[in-house]
């Protein structure tokens, strides 16, 4: 079966708003397919299709309970995305830490020059 290459990694899998919605729901705990259909208000085949994509990239796990298939979020697989945003954030954080040091030195200097005036 031909499949778009766009579904092969977690980044692309979460680019689809409906799939993010599914992950949001699963972030609150595991759900049966029918529960997801109810919460999302989408046709069951569409929900199943999105779940399959999410499973293929490891963002969700499935287990069977009788005839039911129960899905849950695999949070660890979201880590690359989390790290990816964090990198940029860390750069600014390091920058601001350095700025903190500069400000401390400026404050000391200002207090120092204040004393000189007295």
């Amino acid at each position, binding site marked *: 079966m031909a499949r778009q290459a766009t579904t092969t990694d977690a980044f*692309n899998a979460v680019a689809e708003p409906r799939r993010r919605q599914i992950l949001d729901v699963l972030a609150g705990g595991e759900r049966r397919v029918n529960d997801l259909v109810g919460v999302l208000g989408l046709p069951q085949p569409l929900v199943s299709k999105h779940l399959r994509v999410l499973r293929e990239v490891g963002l969700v796990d499935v287990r069977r309970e009788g005839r039911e298939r129960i899905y849950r979020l695999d949070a660890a697989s*979201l880590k690359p995305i*989390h790290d*990816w945003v964090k*990198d940029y954030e860390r*750069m*600014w954080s390091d920058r601001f830490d350095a700025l903190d040091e*500069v*400000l401390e030195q*400026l404050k000391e200097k200002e207090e120092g020059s204040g004393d000189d005036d007295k």
Partner: protein
Amino acid sequence: MTFPSDTQIQITREFAAPKNLVYRAVTEPELVTRWWNAKRGEVTTCEIDLREGGKWRYVMVADEGGYEVAFHGEYKEIVPNERVVTTEAFEGAPDPDTNATTNTMTLEEHDGTTTLTVLIDCPSQFVRDAIVESGMEAGLQDAYDLLEEVAISLR
């Protein structure tokens, strides 16, 4: 760091200093040189012509790899100790000036603590993603809504 819209990035940080000092630290070349490197290299050029229409340019040589990272821009609005609006172009990007962002920095002081906010307005969502992505494979549309809610489950 938050994403107020598909084309924006907002960064906020509090500093234990009055806003006139924060303003000096972000506008005086000899002070900017000491923090803009984010401890990742040495700032080798820091030119600031602090007036509306004036230009700035920062260059850093990275400790790791020794490559140069250069940014430049033009000041659009300056309210001393309060607000600076400037364009910011990354010289390593294709078509730097077309893909430049507009950054609005505001300073608010409360009880001796200054909150610095930078709102980065990108010309497109693609540019926004490329900035955050910094070097990784392109193609993500918007993972951030998800992250805000789900990142918690990673802790």
